[in-house]
């Protein structure tokens, strides 16, 4: 499974707008880590599908996230915003951010 996170908006939006996407391929992880991340992604996709279709009004300095989950060719896209974020999506984002491959990519 490949997870791609595009993070935009925020107080420093012009800086964030130029940042590369964060990508995690679970094929490169140990089996336990891979299983945990894939589970988090599938839960987030399911929750997003349950709450999909709600129009979001842009709020000042709020960040937004576009998460693409490619589950062996089956692609799902999640749009999320900090003020209305589902806890399952928040957990997935935190899990992706904590991944060692992404720990030093902030620049």
């Amino acid at each position, binding site marked *: 499974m490949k997870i791609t996170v595009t993070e935009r908006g925020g107080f420093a939006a012009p800086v964030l707008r130029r940042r590369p996407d964060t990508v995690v391929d679970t094929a490169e992880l140990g089996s336990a880590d891979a299983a945990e991340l894939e589970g988090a992604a599938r839960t987030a996709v399911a929750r997003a599908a349950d709450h999909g279709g709600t129009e979001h009004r*842009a709020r*000042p*300095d709020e*960040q937004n996230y576009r998460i693409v989950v490619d589950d062996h060719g089956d692609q799902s896209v999640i749009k999320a915003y900090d*003020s209305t974020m589902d806890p399952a999506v928040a957990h997935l984002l*935190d899990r992706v951010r904590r991944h060692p491959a992404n720990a*030093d990519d902030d*620049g």
Partner: protein
Amino acid sequence: MNIRGRSVNCILPPHILNALLDSDDREIRRTAIATLTSTSRLRGERTARSIAAVAAPAGGRRTISDCHQSKVLAQATVERGEDDPAVADGSVNAAFDGLGTTRDFYAQVLQRNSIDGRGMRLNGYVHYGQAFNNAFWDSREMVFGDGDGRVFSDFTGALDVIAHELTHGVTEHTAGLEYHNQSGALNESVSDVFGSVVKQWKLGQTAEQADWLIGEKIFTPGVDADALRSMKAPGTAYDTPLLGGKDPQPDRMSKFVNLPDTDEDDNGGVHINSGIPNKAFYLAATGIGGNSWGAPGAIWYEALKASSPDTDFQAFADTTFAKAGQLFGTGSPEQQAVFAAWQGVEIKISGASPLSVRLSASSNGTGAAAASLPSRVDELAGQIKALTKEVNGLRKART
């Protein structure tokens, strides 16, 4: 959840509890306070006392909660209320102080009672998310991230950022500027304006002494950047690969950046094109001279209150010019400075009379001719009146 007529038998998260404490329904407020008391053993007596203290409406009383690196506000715990002493957590104290300074500025300088003008409670949430590089206002509370520690540091450490965010709340309760394209860039600019003005007020600086930088404290010491934005010189705040290159803000209309109105493109560049009205305020404040929270701040605040959700740069410029005239007189130095400020970013005041434009040119930007106009008119009117009286007297003498 039915809360009327019985105690709520669960530990409510602070944002819900605060909403209940804000209720116009006395019974709901009473029940919320009862809940606080009943759960005080779990939350700690100090916390319960502090929230109960803010149950009384008005005054912009503060409550700071700790998210413990979660993005779920419902999991936050209350750490400091309005009457509590400082705590060990520096982020909690910094947020508490920043909210208080901004609240006091609005009350003492602009006579505004908190964000909504009616004493709205000020709720801050710190330690939001994992290495979260942001601070934002979500219409009910203010949320602060810790920063990643590499590029961004703790967002609670910057007073201008806190004042910026709270001003988004003021804008929401006044003009309601829509957060996209020009109205969104104005929304951002107004927050930068009062973010900087509050900082200057706190430091006791004149417009000439101020640095006019926004967010200079949000970067870690290793980042080669003056700040996130410069109101004095938009487009010059940083130029480093670490931040993706050069500061993209324009400083005049001919450099306006057209971007799609999408999440990915900053809602039409609201944080980019805000450089244009930012520069206009800087020019107005330094053109008028003295403290930015005096005449310049009053003009911008009155213009904000007179604006509407779809106000664009041109309409806002015209409104500031009109407000300067109403507050300080037509042709006053303040109005001439506002005229020149917008001219400096290539926006021509459509409401300006030919006389005021001519005076602006003839005064060479000093406003001296405009300043002397009212007294000169009075003087001439007095002379005409005296001469008329004398002529009438002579006519009577001849007949």
